[in-house]
């Protein structure tokens, strides 16, 4: 009798704790979104999305932050593409070309884990050093390169995770039919397509929201860059700079930029989920 009561209390306690944690996390999410929406909507208008800033981004109250939206899209788009181009072959090499239990694969994975953990400001500092060495100034190209470096480990780790759980039998089945490794890759792609999509989503999420790495490398400007060598504004830096302004209207604009950033990430996630489900159709 006593034991069963004790068990019941323990059960209730554990359940209570889980509920508390759930509520805490959920509450946090709601309050973040609420803060951004309530403050951001005050300054939000079509002008914000469609016009360039007037009178300087730090003190100017006119115009919008189209420069930051376009800059972010340029950098994220290009670096995601570049990241994919570099990462996909690495993942295939690790999982299809190298044999199971390969030492090189082990060392490579360890290296990617370390790179994954490196803070983005370090990537920024590294990028900055390299740019100084080559005599480059803060530019769209610098931003793209550093963000690509930043997201490559995310890409590789996420795709690798998806590919490692990949049934080896599928490889054998394909090889047994007389397929070469190259031909087998096409089968692998079909199987890990959802993994690639998830990796791209995570990378885009990280790339679009990172301020530290682009601060020194992409710089900031009030205009839209027309070449790779011009500096480019980004949404996180639009938030950062405007939030530190003494003028309340400019601070509100920072929240509007944060709102755009959040909604973009949300949209990418939803669209990504949709695409992932479609890709998973034939997954084994």
């Amino acid at each position, binding site marked *: 009798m006593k034991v069963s009561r004790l068990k019941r209390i323990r059960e209730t306690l554990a359940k209570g704790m889980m509920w508390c944690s759930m509520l805490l996390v959920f509450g946090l999410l709601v309050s973040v979104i609420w803060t951004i929406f309530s403050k951001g909507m005050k300054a939000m208008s079509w002008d914000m999305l469609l016009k360039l800033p007037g009178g300087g981004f730090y003190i100017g109250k006119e115009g919008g932050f189209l420069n930051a939206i376009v800059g972010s899209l340029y950098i994220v788009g290009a670096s995601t593409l570049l990241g994919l181009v570099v990462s996909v072959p690495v993942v295939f090499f690790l999982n299809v070309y190298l*044999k*199971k*239990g*390969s030492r090189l694969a082990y060392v490579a994975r360890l290296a990617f884990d370390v790179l994954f953990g490196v803070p983005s400001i370090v990537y920024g500092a590294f990028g900055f050093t390299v740019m100084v060495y080559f005599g480059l100034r803060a530019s769209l190209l610098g931003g793209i390169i550093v963000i690509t470096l930043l997201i490559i480990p995310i890409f590789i780790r996420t795709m690798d995770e998806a590919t490692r759980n990949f*049934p080896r*039998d*599928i*490889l*054998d*089945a*394909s*090889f*047994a*039919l*007389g*397929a*070469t490794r190259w*031909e087998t890759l096409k*089968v692998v792609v*079909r*199987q890990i397509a959802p993994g690639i999509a998830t990796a791209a989503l995570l990378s885009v999420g990280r790339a679009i929201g990172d301020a530290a790495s682009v601060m020194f490398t992409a710089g900031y400007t009030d205009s839209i860059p027309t070449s790779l060598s011009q500096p480019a504004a980004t949404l996180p830096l639009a938030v950062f700079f405007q939030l530190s302004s003494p003028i309340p209207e400019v601070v509100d604009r920072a929240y509007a930029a944060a709102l755009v950033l959040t909604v973009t990430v949300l949209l990418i996630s939803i669209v990504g989920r949709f695409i992932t489900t479609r890709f998973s*159709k*034939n*997954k*084994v």
Partner: protein
Amino acid sequence: MAIEVQKLNVYIKGNHILKDVSLTLPERQITCIIGPSGCGKSTLLRTLNRLIDTTEGVRVEGKVLVDGTDIIGSGAEIIELRRKIGLVSQRPCPLPMSIFENVAYGCRINKMFKHRRQLVYHVQRKLKEVGLFDEIKGRMRAPATRLSIGQQQRLCLARSLAVQPEYILADEATSALDPISSKTVEDLFVSFKQQYTIVMVTHTLHQALRIADNVVFMYLGEVIETGPASDVFNHPQHELTQRYLSGIFS
């Protein structure tokens, strides 16, 4: 069309897995490889189509003559060899594609047909051969994973047959199936022995008794006894074979 194995030794990361294996796998017959778990049955099978190459730290010595050509060594045409030797694995393993594409895949990579119409006809014929066509008619575009496990295994068999192999290797191909599907697949193998040389690893002695023409009994990486099924089952020569067949160990 027979396969001849001569003094085959396989080492994986220094462990001696197959020890001096020598045997003949006669053509157009079913040879069942029996023996307790870990005796090297699957390793032997994977060596026959060189899938063993994908294992890390493997070293193969000796000869495996397929149609008189030694397939061990770097000069061997592995891709053509694998096409010639179909494999049906333990668990059905459909490729992440539709039912139709699963069977068509091998034909496509081997560039077997010029026209799509020929390919469609060929795929349908192979699906009919394994008795799957009527069950899945109209669902050819559906993902292969939607099929039941038994159907998936027959699909894998059709996929192997589609590239027109001469040999079929089956690694406990019925062990993951329910009794009815298992019987269906088993019957298929029996009906195929007119056209193909079949090598089957099996864990169940009853299955070997039912379908084998020849039996190879392996123990700890060595071939203990080999010969016609009736001889090995009725008059085992070696004491280990006698003990295994009487169920003293498994």
